[in-house]
């Protein structure tokens, strides 16, 4: 083996990959080139469906039955993978190129102990002895910072949390000491604080082992944190490649620019500096426009030129290996400020419409499902003393990671569950113990919900129009079918969808369009309180901006109270008036957006802020990595819920954090935190995010 090879590890040149379906050929990747040098981490960013995963699978030569490389070459250490035999490929795949997928369980065998799975790698590829393999497995599990490595080796995959599983997958990839690691959205399925820790780990291990990496992500912030260079893809083509610094600060392609303008960076504000969504839709692979793929959505489009011929990558003079696929990049004034969108006046919150007072929701679960005796139950405290008020036309963000009780809270509010204790006042009427069947139509129509997963939010076997009309029927709007149909069409107008969509089936709509239908359905009965459960987190960044803006606009017009559940602090900072941070069923911090995003913080908020990747080179963040995972709500820690991961704990005297649940502390102006830290300690906190002066 050419171990003294010192050229590029991976060199993809003019690669084209197509999938062949019975209807047509789908060109998924076209004329794609990228080079990964030893020890270098290259990011591949773009919206879903732009061909990122296909490139990765192409490198693995694993395109399935109907995929084929139709042009170009993929050289790994100088040898073309396209021309290798199956045997050679197998050799390389296991030991020199490793791949990590989004879903950790996809790479793990559920029926085999972790240790065995790890040991197989060197035993098969190197013929190591059992003893050697075990030692090596122990070594990598320690390297990926899992607690108690011996016990982990003896566990089955399902006994670990998602974050731990992903660490094991990384450990498995590292067992073979590959020279190239391909990561396809490795942290998308994880919580933010866990994601931050995994990313940190990947970076560290890359350095330690000198592994080159191809890091696929849709998150620009994450790429900024992990990679040296990046390649922006759009609709099957690379549109811009270069070093992180060049692409982030001196972008030379209109798509890259539009992408950055559509994500909420610090400084964006829903009233004064709204985001700019990219107009139009992503073209389907078989409906690409002639000439520049980005043409129909590009602000700088020039008819007769941009749509005339295929466009080649061109070198940007003066920069290091910085290339762009735009005819006009030298004519565009890249420094010109973004033309201000429509600025709006901040709407004043009105009277209190919703009030929660010491709301508690406990679930009783059988401690042992199989042999549980009567009375042998455990109590899960999903919501612990929730108190807050929400006003008319106010946006209250509820922030927290999985298991913090956001969904339970939404269920209780909607009436799908009844509260264990405390009260919910809607217009001063108690509704905490009225289940949804017992609520009157008006109450139900008043409190509605927008769901997270666009692919799940609409009934796949009913037309879009029919689903909205059904909501109108249930809410008793309109006296006959014609009136309801008219109202349904108006609702489609409201969410800016063409009226023709009324007769479409959900599968004919894109994710963003489905989410709009979901919004139309929620507003069918003129809802006054809308709970939006991560409404944009599953959408692509450019679509996120459009859907968020739509939600804001409707809210402004209808004076809706929006309860915006999210784990994405960037978007929360952009659109909310007040923020409530939850952890394991407790509200740990509550205040206006400015109060929550500036010190003093609750220690958990501080960590959360540090974990969120920000796609801005000017931002410097304090580095706080949380150890371990979120504890299970079945088995919460004693005392402060955050004490297992808190870095401030040692500053509280007398082990108070482990003994007592901290009281709610008022810090003035309605800002409250639940923490034992003294006022001086809180005051000593430094800001996590700092923006360097221009």
């Amino acid at each position, binding site marked *: 083996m050419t171990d003294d090879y010192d050229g590029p590890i991976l060199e993809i040149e003019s690669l084209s990959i197509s999938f062949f*379906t*019975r209807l047509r050929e789908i060109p998924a990747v076209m004329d794609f080139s990228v080079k990964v040098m030893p020890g270098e981490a290259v990011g591949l960013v773009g919206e879903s469906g732009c061909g990122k995963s296909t490139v990765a699978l192409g490198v693995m030569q694993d395109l399935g039955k109907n995929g084929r490389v139709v042009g170009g070459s993929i050289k790994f250490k100088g040898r073309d993978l396209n021309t290798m035999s199956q045997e050679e490929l197998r050799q390389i795949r296991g030991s020199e190129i490793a791949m990590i997928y989004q879903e950790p369980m996809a790479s793990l065998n559920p029926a085999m102990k972790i240790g065995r799975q790890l040991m197989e790698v060197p035993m098969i590829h190197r013929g190591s002895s059992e003893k050697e393999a075990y030692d090596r497995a122990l070594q990598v599990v320690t390297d990926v910072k899992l607690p108690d490595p011996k016990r982990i080796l003896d566990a089955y995959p399902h006994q670990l949390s998602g974050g731990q599983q992903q660490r094991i997958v990384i450990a498995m990839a590292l067992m073979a000491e590959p020279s190239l690691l391909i990561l396809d959205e490795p942290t998308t399925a994880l919580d933010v604080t866990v994601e931050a820790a995994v990313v940190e780990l990947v970076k560290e291990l890359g350095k330690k082992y000198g592994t080159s990496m191809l890091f696929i992500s849709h998150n620009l912030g994450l790429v900024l944190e992990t990679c040296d260079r990046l390649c922006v893809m759009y609709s099957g083509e690379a549109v811009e490649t270069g070093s992180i610094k060049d692409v982030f600060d001196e972008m030379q392609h209109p798509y890259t620019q539009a992408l950055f303008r559509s994500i909420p960076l610090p400084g964006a504000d829903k009233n004064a500096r709204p985001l700019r969504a990219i107009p139009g839709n992503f073209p389907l692979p078989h409906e690409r426009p002639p000439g520049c793929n980005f043409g129909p959505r590009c602000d700088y489009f020039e008819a007769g030129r941009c749509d005339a011929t295929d466009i080649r990558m061109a070198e940007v003079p003066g920069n290091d290996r910085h290339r762009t696929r735009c005819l006009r990049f030298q004519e565009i004034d890249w420094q010109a400020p973004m033309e201000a969108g429509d600025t709006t006046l901040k709407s004043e919150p009105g009277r209190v419409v919703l009030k929660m007072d010491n709301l508690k929701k406990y679930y009783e679960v059988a401690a042992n499902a199989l042999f549980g005796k009567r009375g042998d139950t455990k109590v899960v405290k999903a919501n612990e003393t929730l108190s807050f008020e929400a006003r008319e036309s106010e946006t209250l963000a509820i922030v927290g990671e999985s298991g913090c009780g956001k969904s339970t809270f939404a269920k209780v509010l*909607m*009436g*799908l569950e009844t509260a264990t204790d405390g009260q919910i006042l809607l217009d001063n009427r108690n509704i905490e113990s009225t289940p*949804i*069947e017992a*609520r009157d*139509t008006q109450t*139900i*129509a008043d409190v*509605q*919900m927008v*769901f*997270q*997963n666009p692919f*799940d*939010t*609409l*009934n*796949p*076997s*009913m037309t879009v129009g029919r689903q909205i009309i059904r*909501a109108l*029927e*249930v*809410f*008793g709007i309109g006296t006959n079918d014609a009136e309801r149909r008219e109202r349904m069409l108006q609702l489609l107008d409201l969410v800016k969808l063409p009226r023709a969509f009324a007769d479409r089936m959900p599968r004919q709509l894109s994710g963003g369009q489905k989410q709009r239908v*979901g919004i139309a*359905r929620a507003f069918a*009965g003129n809802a006054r309180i809308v709970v939006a459960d991560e409404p944009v987190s599953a959408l692509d960044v450019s679509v996120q901006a459009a859907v968020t803006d739509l939600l804001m606009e409707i809210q402004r017009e209808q004076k809706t109270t929006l309860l915006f559940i999210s784990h994405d602090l960037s978007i929360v900072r952009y659109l909310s008036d007040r923020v409530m941070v939850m952890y394991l069923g407790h509200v740990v911090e509550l205040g206006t957006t400015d109060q929550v995003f500036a010190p003093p913080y609750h220690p958990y908020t501080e960590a959360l802020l540090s974990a969120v990747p920000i796609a801005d080179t000017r931002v410097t963040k304090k580095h706080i990595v949380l150890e371990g995972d979120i504890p299970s709500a079945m088995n919460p820690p004693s005392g402060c819920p955050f004490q297992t991961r808190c870095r401030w704990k040692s500053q509280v005297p007398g082990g108070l954090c482990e003994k007592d649940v901290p009281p709610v502390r008022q810090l003035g102006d309605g800002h409250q935190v639940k923490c034992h830290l003294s006022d001086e300690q809180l005051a000593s906190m430094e800001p996590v995010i700092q923006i360097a002066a221009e």
Partner: protein
Amino acid sequence: MEPLNWFEIITRVFIQFIPVWVALVVVFTLSMVYKRRLGLYGKLFDSTIGMIGFALVMFWVFTGIFGAMDLIITHDPLSQVSGMKNKAPGTPLAGAEEGYYPYYLFGGDNLARDVFSRMVKGAWVVVQIAPMATVFAFMVGITLGLPAGYYGGKLDTFLSFLANLILAFPVILLFYLLVTPEIVDTGIPNYMAMVLFIFPIIFVGVLLNSRYRTQPKVRTPMLIVVLGIMGWLYLSLISQPGTALKLLPDAVDLFNLQGGILVVFVSVVFVNSPTVFRIVRGLTMDIKTRDYVAAAQTRGERPWYIMLWEILPNARGPLIVDFCLRIGYTTILLGTLGFFGLGLPPESPDWGTTINDGRRLLQVYLHPAIVPAVALLSMVLGLNLLADGLREESLRD
């Protein structure tokens, strides 16, 4: 006249089936032309397996239909022609008069009846009973499986236990019990029919009520009409003169099933519905976690609307596949029943009964049993291939 040789027999059979060939060609041409607009059915025509299965099934369906119209058959399936007893395929009719088909193409059976015509007529019996019985089994399975999966808990435990109990019971023994005269006299099959056949009414009633709950003006008349008609059909179906259940006076009793057929229906529904129940229950448990179900709950929909309009339509893929397979099982079951002389009347031309008739002289005369056996085999094979094709195609794109 000389007996026909095999080539001549095949040619003549081919000619007899001409209406079926024409119908098949028409169906296939139309489906191929419009396949992109026909949803899952259209996609079937992309799969060779599926097409072969569909062709086999449709062959027997058309044979049944045209046979019922007396098109394909060469002789009356019940009439006996002297001298034709157990004659070999292709034997000419001794002293055939003008207007009679001059040959027994597939020979004559034990009672000197035409095997070919009996096979064709038998197709009609099978094509009618098997799908109908399966539909009833689905109605029962769905009506019970949806709430079991949706509510879970004690209801689910109870119904699942019941289903397992029935599944654990030997099918043939059950049939023997059901047709034993002593048991028939107690009216047990009729009472079972009463219970099982009420499910379609419940199903349709709940389906319409949940959909039009918000518009009482439309709902009430619609329910009265639909349930009225179904109720009448139901009462006609279960009330039999001379049995324990005589609910309707003869004047308004629309039809009476032959006693045997009712028992066949009851047994088939009884043994098939637990399996359908389990499939529906599993699918429901999976689909009820989807956001669109939560969306329906949060807008205050009633549970039955959610089960029937939000969950059931999205479970249709696996259910359609299982429906095809189950028609196949039912066909075999009917054959088995007929073979044991249970259920259908002895002179019925259905394949199971015919095989049983031919069985006694099997060592001497093969053809009376082998012809219906091949027919049964090809139809079940067709249904299985069709199910495979549908499964494969519904998974793609």
